[in-house]
C-alpha cells in the first residue's frame, strides 16, 4: 500500500498513537511489520521494556544502515539497538516470559479484527495451504493485553474491522485495542467503540469503512 492512498494516520503515527497507551514499567512485545515501529516511538519518562520472541529483552530503535550489529535482530529481522539493562534468553525461556503472563501488551499486525475480540493474522485465506503463526498464537493467548495495528481496509477497500472473523482466528476474545489509519478502536462485543479518530476523518467515513457498528 503506498503512502499516498492512505487516509488518516501514517504507519508511524498509528504506532505512536498505540505506544501512547504503554504505561511506565510495562513489558511490551512488538510483532513483525507495523508494530516494530513502536520501538522508534519516544515514550518520554515512561520506561517500557521491549521484548522480542527471539529472546531479546530490552531493545530500542532500529539502527541506521552501516551501524547494524548483524547478531542482533528483533522479531521482524530488523537490526535493532539494545537499551541499558537488556538481557538475552533462549527461545524456550522467551516464550516462558510470554506464556506466564509477563507481557503487559503485545502489539501485532492482523488481517481481521473482530468486535467480539477475535482476530486473524496467520492465514491469508480460509483454504490457503500453510500459514505463518510465528509467536502470534502464544502472544495472543497469554499477553495481558492484545493491541492490533492494521490498515483499516484491504487494498480493495473491504473492511478489516468486522463483527466476526472470516479467516481462521489466531485467538478468541482477546483483543484490547485496535489502531488503524482511521483511529483507535475498542472491541465491545457487537461493535467497536471509537476512542479517537485520525485528523480529517469523520465518524460517517469510518462507519462506511468498518464491518461492525461503531459507537462514538
Amino acid at each position, binding site marked *: 500500500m503506498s503512502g499516498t492512498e492512505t487516509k488518516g494516520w501514517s504507519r508511524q503515527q498509528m504506532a505512536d498513537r498505540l505506544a501512547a497507551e504503554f504505561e511506565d514499567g510495562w513489558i511490551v512485545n512488538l510483532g513483525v511489520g507495523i508494530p516494530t515501529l513502536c520501538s522508534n516511538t519516544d515514550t518520554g519518562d515512561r520506561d517500557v521494556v521491549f521484548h522480542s520472541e527471539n529472546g*531479546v529483552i530490552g531493545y530500542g530503535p532500529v539502527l541506521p*544502515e552501516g551501524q*547494524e550489529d548483524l547478531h542482533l*535482530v528483533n522479531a521482524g529481522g530488523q537490526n535493532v539497538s539494545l537499551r541499558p539493562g537488556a538481557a538475552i534468553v533462549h527461545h524456550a525461556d522467551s516464550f516462558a516470559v510470554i506464556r506466564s503472563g509477563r507481557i503487559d501488551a503485545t502489539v501485532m499486525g492482523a488481517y481481521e479484527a473482530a468486535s467480539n475480540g477475535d482476530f486473524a493474522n496467520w492465514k491469508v485465506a480460509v483454504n490457503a495451504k500453510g500459514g*505463518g503463526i510465528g509467536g502470534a498464537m502464544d502472544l495472543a493467548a497469554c499477553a495481558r493485553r492484545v493491541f492490533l495495528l492494521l490498515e483499516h481496509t484491504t487494498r480493495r477497500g473491504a473492511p478489516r474491522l468486522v463483527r466476526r472473523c472470516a479467516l481462521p482466528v489466531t485467538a478468541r476474545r482477546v483483543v484490547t485495542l485496535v489502531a488503524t489509519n482511521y483511529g483507535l478502536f475498542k472491541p465491545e462485543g457487537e461493535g467497536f467503540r471509537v476512542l479517537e479518530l485520525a485528523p480529517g476523518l469523520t465518524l460517517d467515513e469510518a462507519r462506511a469503512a468498518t464491518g461492525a457498528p461503531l459507537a462514538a
Partner: protein
Amino acid sequence: MPKSKLFAGFAEAVAGIPDGSTIAFGGFAGPGTPFNLIRALLAQGARNLTCVSNTTGGAHQPRMPDIGMLVENGQVRKVVCSFTAATRPTDVLPFARFLEAGQVEAELVPQGTLAERLRAAGSGIPAFYTPTGVGTEIAEGRETRNFNGREHLLEHALPVDYALLRACQADEAGNLRYRLAQRNFNPVMAMAARTVLVEVEEELLPAGAMDPDAVHTPGIFVHRLVRIPPPPDGLWPARRLERAR
C-alpha cells in the same frame, strides 16, 4: 581421552547423516542459522529428511542456504515450522509451491510450542499442556484439558536425531556461547538432539578458557564442531533486505 570434537570441515561433519533423519536447524531471521552446515548438507544429499526449524527461509535477500533449498533439492519429506507460508499475501516463499504441489508435508506449530516441544524432548518430558492455540484451527480434533478454569492443549516432545547450529564461541569440551540474538532456538535444539553439529565463528578455545558461568550450551550436549573460515569460503551473515514484493 575421547576423540576431539573439532572436525576439519563441514563436509566431514555432515558425512554420516543418513536418509530419513530428523534434523533441527537453529536460527531466527538470520542470526544463529548454520548456513555452512546447510550448504554442506545440500552437497551431501541425504534424502527423506524431516526438518525442524522456525521457518523454511527465503523471505529475505541475499538468500542464504535454507530449508527451502533442501526442499528444492528433493531432500525433504516433511518440515515442522512456525511459518510454512509468508504472512503477507503478496509474498510467496520459494517453499510454498512445493507445499501446494503436495511434494512436501508441513506441520505448522506455534513458535512457543515449537521451542517448548524441543526443550521437553531434551528434558525427558514426553508431553505438557499449553494454552496456546486453543479455539483455533490448529486445535481441531486435538486433546484438550482444563486446568485452573482454562482449556489447554496437550503437546508432545519433539526429539530430533541431529541439530545443526551456529555459535559464536566454543571450547575443546564443546561448551558454546552465542552472541545476542544468535542464541534463539540453538540451546533447546542442542538439548533435543542425539547428535549436535555446530559451526563456530571464533577460534576454538582450549578447555578451561571459557568461564563455566558464561556457558550457554554445556559441552556434554555437543558432538561436532567446525570452525567457519573467513569469506568467501565460509558463509557469514550479510545485512538483510526485504524481498522485492
